[in-house]
């Protein structure tokens, strides 16, 4: 498992939200809102998680005409393992109850 250093509270929150999504894709704005982090914290974190193979990203075609495609994210198996370990270590409540369904 890739875990080179202690995770910040923000990273733990983002991982918890992604874990609670149970494999469905999440978008950046929604992730930031649910995890309670600013976009300036979220994106560097997502970039790092993806580079470490903990997160996968895909472009999703818009559901409405004229809207741009959106980048969506979900944890890889490795990311899920890390998120579970982190949540267990910290004893944090998972964010499932707070999370809305995502596309």
């Amino acid at each position: 498992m890739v875990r080179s250093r202690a995770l910040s509270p923000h990273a733990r929150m983002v991982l918890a939200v992604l874990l609670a999504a149970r494999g469905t894709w999440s978008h950046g704005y929604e992730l930031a809102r649910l995890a309670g982090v600013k976009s300036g914290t979220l994106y560097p974190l997502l970039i790092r998680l993806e580079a470490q193979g903990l997160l996968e990203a895909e472009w999703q075609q818009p559901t409405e005409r004229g809207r741009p495609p959106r980048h969506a994210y979900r944890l890889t198996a490795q990311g899920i393992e890390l998120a579970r370990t982190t949540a267990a270590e910290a004893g944090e409540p998972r964010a499932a109850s707070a999370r809305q369904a995502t596309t």
Partner: protein
Amino acid sequence: MTAGSQRRLAELTCRILETVLPASQQAWGRAIRHETAAIPDDALALRFALGSLAGLLPQALAARATAWLSADSEPIAPAPGGTIVMSQHKPFAPDLRKLGMLCAAGAVALGIVHLALTGAPLRYLGLNLGALLIGLSLLGLLGSTPPAIRRHDGLALVAAAGALLATGALGETAEGAARWVRWGGLSLQPSLILIPVMILAFTRQPGRLGTAGMIGAALAMAIQPDRAMAAALALGLAVASAWRPGRQAGLACAASFLALGATLLRADRLPAVPHVDRILFTAFELPSLAGLAALGGSALLLVPAIVGWRRDPAHRGTYAAFGAVWGTAIAAAALGNYPTPVVGYGGSAILGYLLSLATFPRPTPSTAGHDTPGQDPAEATPFDQPLPLGLA
């Protein structure tokens, strides 16, 4: 700020971010732009875009600087006979002008973040952006100036000193200071535009005419009076005279210190102007993002001096003078009611910063390759078309 303006500024912020991100991360820039477009509320979209820019800009610039710094090193083919393969340094080929342009763009972008978060009028943001574009264009023009024209640097320095003296005598006044000229409905501060480039040109090629020009500039700073630029002039010329000791540089340096002394003897009663002065002084009292943007933008301005000093020993005098001038201007803005260069509202410092980059040595030809960004399905959407500029 109107909702439409907020949306346009959010879009522009995302475009800036996309531009500064390294090729390997530009898909992330597009992702943020498209995500911002999907946020229905204009104010939230703007906040999302500005936050993303502030969060990613430092690492984007660091990634570009790292790529640039490692561009002069590449492995060589194994020598016949199984010799151990090591890395080889190509002839040094830095492009410090490009780095400076990047730092200027980054500092302007962080300044825009700061201004937006502290409630500055939208036209302030547009003016700084416009000054950046004009400055980049001017730098492009000056960058191709033939060496034959550069031989007349001395005359140019005298002409610039004349402009500064005329400003002191005939320019706009406020509380006893005469530092500004009205042009196209804007109030420009010629000393911020001219003094840095004058010092650097003089450092490169001091001479009798150049010395006369620098003494004229010192006199102008005493007349206006302008402590901040007088201090920048004095420290810049101190570096110049240390780098090229001689009678000419010594005279210019002595005149500049006398001028600085004269400005210190005269009272400076100018009040602080919101979004222009005291930005750094109050950076730690502001919400974290606004304060960090101001500090980060100011720090970026000194990066070309540091990198140039380290990577181009043959021209250290130029980089030291550049660092002395802009470092002093930043320090003066932190200590008194003087404009915060590039980060605060005002196009003069932005123009001055970019023009001063024109004195940097030309890069030697480099064979370094360029990254080719990968394509993604979002590449061809209408949202990826060039952004028509229209902020106001």
